[in-house]
């Protein structure tokens, strides 16, 4: 059942603007990243759980990698609290306005810089980019097999067994390692932070020199990435135009806090439910 040696496990996480809070929303609906509240991409919590589960079940070391401006170190600290072993932040002004291709290129260079790996976990998608492309694009650069939409997996010897979602069913997969896996949000939710992890992070924050050894910040030169392939220059796509979409968001007529029968009377009166009844 169990697999032979401890594994080198990488997990990729991104810091995204918290869209639940209205702070940092420009009048045109775009996000002002400097003012917006920040959070760990919700989908990456499942990837983190998959990485930590692998370590717990089969042994190994978890490296958490992120690309973003300096505040993104917050998500690496959060990952440390959950029990990852080290964090690497790729941060460089020349990465601004990277699309998924440029992002995948920069992360690919960072992964090579981080050394040997058996498994790479990504979230299914981000809530800001919302493309689900970075994972497979990275796998292509790294020439790896991939399992996207992975709901469940186990290691058996030097093989990975995985189940992936498809329309109307699933696929049962057996693959060699190394492999890249994007974890679906139907995988197990992230467990609570460990007491040890929280304590460790508190200690590290009081000892910046030690913190630097656990979370390293690197730039394009450190990882040997070509700046021409990053940022705006390295991005084959641009957002040429955005427009606000009217109906979605906040137009729901809410009925709450009243007596049940009153709410139901109201909704039947206000909506067009009656039009579809048997008689009419």
């Amino acid at each position: 059942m169990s697999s032979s040696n401890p594994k080198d496990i990488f997990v990729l996480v991104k810091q995204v603007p918290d869209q639940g809070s209205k702070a940092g929303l420009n009048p045109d609906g775009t996000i002002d990243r400097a003012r917006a509240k920040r959070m760990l991409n919700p989908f990456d919590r499942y990837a983190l759980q998959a990485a930590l589960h692998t370590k717990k079940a089969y042994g190994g070391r978890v490296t958490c990698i992120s690309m973003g401006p300096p505040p993104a170190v917050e998500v690496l600290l959060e990952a440390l609290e959950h029990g990852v072993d080290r964090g690497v932040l790729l941060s460089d002004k020349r990465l601004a306005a990277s699309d998924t291709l440029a992002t995948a290129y920069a992360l690919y260079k960072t992964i090579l810089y981080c050394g040997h790996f058996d498994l790479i976990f990504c979230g299914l998608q981000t809530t800001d980019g919302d493309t689900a492309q970075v994972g497979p694009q990275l796998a292509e650069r790294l020439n790896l097999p991939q399992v996207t939409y992975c709901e469940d997996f186990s290691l058996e010897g030097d093989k990975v067994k995985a189940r992936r979602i498809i329309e109307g069913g699933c696929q049962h997969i057996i693959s060699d390692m190394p492999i890249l896996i994007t974890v679906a949000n139907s995988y197990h939710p992230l467990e609570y932070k460990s007491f040890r992890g929280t304590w460790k992070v508190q200690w590290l924050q009081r000892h910046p020199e030690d913190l630097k050894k656990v979370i390293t910040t690197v730039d394009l030169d450190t990882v040997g990435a070509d700046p021409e392939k990053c940022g705006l220059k390295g991005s084959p796509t641009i957002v040429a135009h955005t427009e606000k979409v009217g109906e979605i968001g906040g137009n729901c007529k809410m009925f709450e806090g009243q007596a049940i029968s009153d709410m139901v009377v109201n909704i039947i009166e206000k909506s067009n439910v009656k039009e579809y009844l048997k008689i009419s």
Partner: protein
Amino acid sequence: MTDKEIKNSNTSQNTQNTESALPIHETPRGNVMVIAEQILGELQPVTLELLGAGRLLTDKLGTKLVCLLLGHNMAETTKKLIQYGADIVYVADHPELHTYRTLPFRRVVCDFLESLSEPPHVTLLGSTTTGRDLAPRIAAHFETGLTADCTELDIGPYEHKSKIDPSKLGLYPDCLYAIRPSFGESLKARILGPWKNPQMATTRPGVMIPLRADPNRQGEIITVPVNLKPEDFRLNVAETVREIASALKLTEADVIISGGFGLGTPEGFALLRELASCFPNSAIGASRKVVDLGWIPYEHQVGQTGKTVRPKLYIACGISGAIQHRVGMSKSSTIIAINKDPDAPIFKFAHYGIVGDVYQIIPEMIKQLKCVEKEQGEKTIVHSH
């Protein structure tokens, strides 16, 4: 492919007026290509939708609509692709292509694209679990742009004025406009990548409109070589499990009563059926979570990996409104949500919401609707006299 970049260099004229003298780039004459999707030989509806959308693009570009089909023994499907709009169907037929697997499929697609003298101008796939697995690999291989999950496609000009990269400056006459919702659907973004072909996009299933099948349409069928390598078999599919959806009238119903995890037990669907019986042309829908739990068969599932529905009335009972559910039902004319959590995401896009327990609200709703029905019934009788 990288060095093939934009070979049409600047054909700029008018050097006097340097202010507005943007170089005008030639339109590449490549075709519009749709990569067909099949699961165990069964052609997926999104492919026909893509052919419909692709036809509109080719009509604007004056080029051909081609379709690449990978599979095994797909002769019938090939004919269907022509009936639905393809001018040329390229067929890669191989037993190893019967079941979708990333590596063999990416091999065949990349080899095929490399073999063409002119890359397609546009390449389209569905935003399905297959399309979203394959498309990014192709895009990364050719270092070209890919826009995910589009809801509209168009062709039009684009003027690039940013001087950050002078080589990109200029006017591009016929670019792919890939239009998609962003930031949780609150914005619509038009995304372009005219510098490199193919310009790629995936489109959301159920959004684009297929053409009507025309049995008299003529098209060419061309066989594509398949050269798989041992490294393409590092990953294997032991089994593909599918629950065959029977022809449930979910997609044709005027009213859908849909249940989610908030029902608490499978028995909750009995209550939903009672509510549904108030409406003549109604059906029962469900979220994936309850389908996975075995509370109701898969054929009732609405959403990204279920059915896309657009009834006149959709009543969501105990459904949180996850994006994967929303994409399957957000086009419904009226959406009513019943959920005990006032912050449930479903209230962000429903038209009417009641905050409360389904087991208190639905029985009350049934009671009141039956009264209304009776009243209306009496009125009708009075009128008919």
